[in-house]
């Protein structure tokens, strides 16, 4: 693990700068952190168990295909389980996916915040934009985990945030071994898959699905969330398209300005001045609105994308619940079968005693399994009810804040544009009037020939 920052790559300073720009309360960037909704932020700062996490300083490590980016993670906490109030670690993207995986495994029923998606192509290109975008997404991810009522107390998070290089390297090695081990013997998985296939075939034949056993309210919520995903994905797609169109328009405006300037060169009078103004000002407008489009991509498009990803995580949780339920139903079915078998054996005269004992033991075994499955399903249900509630509330407030910020940004952008255009108009008028006073209809574009 390359934790040491021996040779800072040349672009580090740039990235640090941008990081500073976005963390400081710059006027444009101020609406960029809708996730620290005011009520949440203030509560956690006073709360004794609060954890504040910052993802900083992306540093590129290595070269070529094996290159990767590490981030410095600074934790400030008053959580009793943590040994130090302030700690700093260096982590790379795959470490975040470890955290995500562990959290998902250990906290079934919890909605674990979404990680940014892995992108092999972009990772290979390692553009500054991409790194910064990922840094921001990871920041959002960690903040969400650290403010999650259940996940913030998890051991995994503490390990991730606090452990020193040695412990961490060890843990990573263990994880790699685990994941390669779990891949190798596919028999278990195959067996489970076969069973579930059997189960679904059964339910298909009997025309009944697990939905019957589910809470009607939950089914409503589930369908709502499933549909929500399409809407959010669409909204994100359109937002991205709008930003793209905006950028295109800026290019066109700039080119138009240049073409006008070229034409203006053939005039030696006020038209040249007007067109010079047109070119200069429209270039400025294009530049500033390009910057705004970039900011909008960070503050509007990226959060929308994150929301769509979070829906995916909710869907994972819902899938877990469905699996638990189907396991419970399977276990119940097994148990019923065994009970019938036992009753048959008991009813058959002249049978060996040990066969009945064996059947009785099987029934008992089945009962424990049903109990275990019921327990895990119930715990998922209990946790999920709470989680879905929290998720919905958070989403509502996030979305409202996001759109509020969007409206504000649009208003500001329009105001800036209006100011720029009116300045251009004033300039043009000034030039025209100045020129009109001097040579109202004097020599035209051409030197007067005769």
């Amino acid at each position, binding site marked *: 693990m390359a934790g040491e920052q021996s040779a800072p790559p040349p672009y580090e300073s740039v990235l640090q700068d941008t990081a500073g720009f976005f963390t400081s309360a710059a006027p444009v960037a101020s609406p960029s952190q809708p996730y620290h909704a005011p009520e949440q932020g203030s509560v956690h700062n006073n709360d004794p168990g609060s954890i504040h996490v910052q993802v900083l300083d992306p540093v590129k490590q290595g070269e070529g295909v094996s290159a990767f980016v590490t981030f410095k993670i600074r934790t400030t906490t008053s959580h009793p389980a943590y040994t130090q109030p302030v700690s700093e670690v260096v982590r790379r993207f795959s470490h975040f996916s470890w955290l995500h995986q562990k959290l998902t495994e250990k906290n079934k029923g919890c909605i674990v915040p979404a990680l940014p998606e892995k992108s092999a192509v972009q990772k290979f290109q390692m553009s500054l934009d991409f790194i910064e975008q990922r840094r921001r997404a990871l920041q959002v991810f960690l903040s969400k985990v650290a403010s999650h009522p259940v996940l913030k107390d998890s051991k995994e998070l503490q390990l991730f945030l606090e452990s020193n290089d040695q412990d961490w390297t060890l843990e990573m090695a263990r994880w790699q071994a685990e994941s390669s081990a779990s891949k190798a013997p596919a028999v278990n998985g195959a067996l489970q898959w076969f069973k579930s296939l059997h189960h679904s075939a059964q339910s298909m034949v009997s025309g009944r699905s697990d939905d019957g056993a589910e809470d009607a309210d939950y089914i409503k919520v589930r369908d709502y969330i499933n549909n929500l995903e399409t809407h959010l994905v669409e909204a994100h797609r359109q937002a991205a398209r709008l930003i793209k*169109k905006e950028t295109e328009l800026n*290019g066109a405006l700039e080119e138009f300005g240049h073409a006008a300037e070229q034409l203006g060169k053939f005039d030696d009078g006020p038209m040249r001045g007007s067109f010079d103004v047109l070119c200069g000002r429209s270039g400025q407008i294009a530049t500033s609105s390009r910057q705004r489009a970039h900011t909008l991509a960070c503050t509007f498009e990226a959060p929308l994308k994150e929301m769509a990803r979070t829906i995916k995580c909710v869907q994972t949780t819902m899938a877990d619940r469905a699996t638990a339920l189907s396991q419970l139903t399977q276990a119940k079915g097994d148990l019923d079968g065994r009970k019938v078998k036992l009753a048959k054996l008991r009813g058959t005269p002249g049978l060996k005693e040990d066969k009945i004992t064996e059947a009785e033991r099987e029934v008992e075994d089945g009962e424990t399994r049903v109990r275990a499955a019921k327990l895990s399903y119930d715990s998922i249900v209990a946790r999920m009810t709470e989680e879905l509630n929290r998720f919905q509330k958070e989403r*509502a407030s996030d979305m*409202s804040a996001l759109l509020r910020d969007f409206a504000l940004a649009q*208003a500001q952008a*329009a*105001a800036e544009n*209006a100011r720029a255009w009116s300045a251009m108009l004033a300039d043009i008028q000034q030039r025209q009037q100045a020129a009109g006073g001097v040579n109202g*209809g004097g020599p035209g574009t051409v030197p007067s020939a005769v």
Partner: protein
Amino acid sequence: MNAEGSLPAAAHCPLIQAAAFSDALPMQEGSLENMPLDELSYPVDADAVLHPSNDHQLPVSSQGVDTPESHPHQYSGFTQQGMDATRPAPSQDPQLLQHRQQQQQQQQQHQHPQAQVQQHQHQHQKGGPMAEFVCSVDSPSKVSGASSIPGVEESYWVFPITTTSANQQSGPVTQVQTWRRFRDCVSLSELLMALLPGYFLPMRPHRNAVATRRGSARFLEDRRAGLERYLNRLAFHPVASKCEALHIFLTSQGDLRSNPAWIKLQASRYPRRGLLDSTARFFKQLMGREVTAPFPSDITQSARASGDVFRLMREQMAHLQGLHKSTPASPSELALRDAGAQLESVRVALVALSSRADVLVERSGGKADAKAALGRALQGCASHDDAFSKSLQFVEASTAGGLLRASQLLSLATDLTAKHLTAVHDHLASLPAAQGAMACRERALLTVVTLEVALARRAGALDAARSQDPTSQRARMLQADVEGHETALDVGRQEYDKLAERNASEMVSWGRQLRADFMAMAKEFAMVQMSSAEKEHVLWAETHAALLQEHQQQQRQHQQQQQHMQQEQAGWLRSS
């Protein structure tokens, strides 16, 4: 979110010092000359644009329409169209066309012709030439008449053209209406070009045989607008507007092609002799039986048009030898050549600018579309969230509404921008005519130069012949030829001088017009962008205020709930 606490500073302070501007901006002064006079093309009313902060009404809501009493005849561009934004593009179907026609008629009833004229004049440059008349072309109607093939009926569209004389010095205002078909317009433009060489005449609308057959409403509307624009451009031309041909075209009643004055004018265009005559003459000239000097009456025509084969060949040869370039030219000719070269480079720049303008308009429309699409996507979210949270639904729906209105606003601004940028396309379209007029002068120069060379040669030959035998047949022949050439040269020089003078003066007024149009364009372009941005700002500021209010209300409710819960808990503790 600290930024929410206070609205952007811009929301409080008036964006534009409106008063300062309205003083600086002469009303309507910079309008485009080539604007068609239909309702959609009134330039953005400066007043309505510059005082958007006075009325905080949104442009797209129907309440927001303000019709300033001071301009009863004029639409206050932006606002009025804001109301019509939901209407499809004008004249896409005959019903709309009819509707438009009715509107126009109403307008005309209300307007005294004098007022109409003044309004028209008002839209043009103060310093520029005055229009002789104002034309308005109405929607065409279908007529069937005898075709050029006997015994076959053909149907065609005729356009009612109403001409109002606008020159106050020449007498009282009169109004004449006549019916013309597009073919008449074509022959008018050909006739004018033949009668007035060397002038930069406006271009008539293009012919389009296929679309004419089909006769779609859109095409007819385009053609109508094009005709109107063409005639009104002619009205501003100091020479063409006084031309007899145009007068006949506009005022004579009945079929133009059977009008005797028109036929006479048409005939004067073709002084050419028959093919047989000119061929016979060519051979006689080759044989030396006939003088090679062209007829003086032919000189005003181009060699090709006059049918003088000998002259044509001589001039072609001279052209190939580059005689007109090697001959030392007068300073005025050199200046005109520079101007011609500049015309070409302006053309190149205009081609670039017009394609950029198209791209700009297209992209602007693309952005409007994208905004609308995002608005619709958010509307989808809103209707989906309706059952879940009324507050969220409200937020999403208002943002979506804002986006949709912003999109409407933007597409409106796009339309207006496109309209203002037509100046670019129009000037580009008028360049070939200007270049043609320059070419006329160059042709005349070629004739002069060729004649000069030929005369010198003939004079030399005459001297030689005279020194041999002054009374010989050949000397007499040469004598006549030299005299012929001298007369022709005189006429040719006069013709060239006339054309050069026309070219020069046209060049000046062309440059002035270009400058005026483009400065107006730049101003109006900026004005449209500014007013659209301002209205968008108002719109978003309002949307944001509504969202903020909703947010605060939500927070208040939340606090109340918490207080309520705490009280309940306290009560429960006390009771237990």
